[in-house]
């Protein structure tokens, strides 16, 4: 089956502690998959392993056709295939503070892919346009609102046209209205261009509204998965129920 992402038996241990104990995960092209779990359940470790930002100890990762094996993280020169096909949006957007929004988006195409500045600018402006932040192209990250910065960060990750997009807690800095808008944007990204999206989140409403599928991670294991609406409407595993419980306890939405 052609998937944007296939993870088999992913294991990560730090010192004595096992963080991931054999995680199997698939994200087909065109699908948005929510990776949910309590804090410390290993969501970030899954994303960072797939993005080759940290080593893992067992299993294999096939990310958009690029295979990662256990052991130390390969040198960047050996990861070029992965970098051009897998994009990542960080939790705190991590835009480059010294560059304008437009320059943030143009940086990788010009320097990593060797595009001309004209072509990079054209693509970057189109992405900013699609994400509704073209009017902020000249602004520096510190001048952007949380929602704007989030969109610029997505544009930056999309500029090299990756087949798989990883997102770490994309809604943490957004108000409810913005969350809905983000869901619409991501839906279009996945369906129109056939990208796979793997999104770590503990925002149940966002997962239900924006994602096709949900996988629940608890204590380093995948404990439940299925269509977002089914899993979140009718949770089977105690960890899933606890996640939903927390949401009802928390004030606001």
């Amino acid at each position, binding site marked *: 089956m052609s998937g944007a992402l296939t993870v088999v038996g992913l294991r990560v241990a730090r010192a004595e502690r096992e963080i991931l104990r054999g995680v199997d995960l698939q994200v087909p092209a065109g699908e948005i998959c929510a990776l949910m779990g309590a804090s410390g359940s290993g969501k970030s470790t899954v994303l960072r392993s797939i993005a080759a930002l940290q080593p893992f100890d067992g299993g294999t990762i096939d990310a958009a056709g690029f295979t990662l094996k256990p052991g130390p993280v390969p040198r960047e020169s050996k990861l070029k295939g992965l*970098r051009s096909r897998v994009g*990542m949006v*960080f939790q705190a957007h*991590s835009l480059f*503070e010294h560059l304008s929004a437009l320059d943030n988006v143009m940086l*990788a195409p010009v320097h990593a892919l060797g595009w001309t500045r004209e072509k990079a600018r054209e693509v970057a402006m189109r992405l900013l346009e699609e994400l509704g932040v073209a009017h902020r192209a000249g602004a520096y990250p*510190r001048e952007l609102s949380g929602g704007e910065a989030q969109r610029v960060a997505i544009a930056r*990750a999309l500029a090299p046209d990756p087949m798989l997009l990883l997102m770490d807690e994309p809604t943490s800095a957004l108000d409810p209205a913005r969350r809905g808008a983000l869901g619409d944007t991501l839906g279009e990204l996945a369906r129109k261009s056939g990208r796979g999206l793997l999104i770590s989140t503990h925002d149940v409403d966002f997962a239900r509204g924006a994602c096709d599928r949900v996988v629940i991670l608890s204590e380093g294991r995948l404990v439940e998965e299925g269509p977002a609406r089914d899993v979140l409407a009718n949770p089977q595993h105690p960890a899933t129920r606890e996640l939903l419980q927390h949401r009802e306890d928390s004030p606001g939405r």
Partner: protein
Amino acid sequence: MMLVALLAVRGSASGQSTAKPPLRWGGDAEGGAPFVEADPADPSKVRGFDVEIAEMIARGLGREPRFVQVSWASIEQSVERGDFEVGMSGLEDRPELRARHSVSIPYFEFHEVLAVRPADRNRFRRLSDLAGKRVATLGATMAYQMLLDEQARSGLVPISYDDDVHPYSDLVAGRVDAVLLDNIIAERSLRRIGGFVIQPEPAATGHYVAVFSRANASLRDSANEVLRARMRDGSLEQTFRRWGVWSPAQGEYFQRVLSAAASPERDAQAAAVPGASDRSLRTYLPALLRAAGITLILSFLAMALAVSVGIAVAAGRVYGPPVVRALLTVYVEVMRGTPVLLQLFVIYYGLSGVVRLPAFAAAVLGLGLNYAAYESEIYRAALQAIARSQLEAGRTLGLSEWQILRLVRGPQALRLALAPMTNDFVALLKDSSLVSVITVVELTKQTAIYATNVGSWVVPGLLCSALYLVFSLPLSRFARRLERRWSWG
């Protein structure tokens, strides 16, 4: 009151009810033999012909001599401040000296002589043969003034030293083409290091004198009586013979001094410095501005070197393998842990056997490499202050480590480093005054020369401060503006 009590106790202790206070006299033991040097048998004592003459004067006045160490260039200022009553240490008789202080009769006649390498013996016989050549001497002396006057005439290049040993070693090493100094110093250096010749024809004649504060003319007159008596009874001659500086010409000179005893002021004109004239602000200002330019160029070049080397060292310490990191750490700690003055000496004099750097290049190198250690620590801290997520964002975008450093980490670190860098540049601007020890005449040195020649620090000091501030204030403002523009959040 306490002083009176102290003197009373002192008096009764020595059993003399009318004991006079000791005669405090100032000299520079760094000047060395035969003037004043630390006694090899007991380094807490000094010896030399100036020491013996000071003793003669003190005894003649019924007082005990007491030596006060003072740097040679400060003797005149110190005697006027009252640090001691008499200053002696091969002090040259000059019209300016007589205008500002009470000055004794000259007690020794010397000649300014030219020392050259043996191969140049026939080429460089007198100053006028040295157009465009580098000629060394002690700063703030009659000889230095002669070189400045010759510079105006023939384009000779005067090189000023803070001591009288290195001019000769640099002559032998080929760094300078000639040395103009007192025959006593020249002959002493010839005995010690050799390798050069002294031209027989003196370039000028001068005299050594003792200096007293302007208000203390009465002590000067008493001291003159003692000096004349010792010329007459031969004890001065004995002293000069003991130190190997006596000649029949000196005897004739004594006779002239003694026969002119009735009108001692005639001797005041004995110091015939060719071309010497009344130096004023107008004559010194161009030299001061030129020196300020040297300070500025030197500081900019040294800072450019410090920044480039500092960036490389910081990058090596952050990215390099353990061996490189260890070596660079040693470099940084050695440079920061030892005085920059010492480093300048090592680079200029210490390495002269291996590589003979011109003074200006040695100054840029010394200051630059020293400040590079400080800069590298600033850059290292700034590099490490950049959040890991910024670097990871660069990696996920497919940038290489080098591109991340150049495009993401470096530019952000540079903004963090800007304020401490500016502080360092202002500090470097001021530390550049240290390079005068390796003969570069920059702003502070030129000011010291100026101050010594006019006998006051007030105007030169104010001018010098103003020039430093003109450089440093706009820099600080500029940095504050940039910082505001680049500040985030």
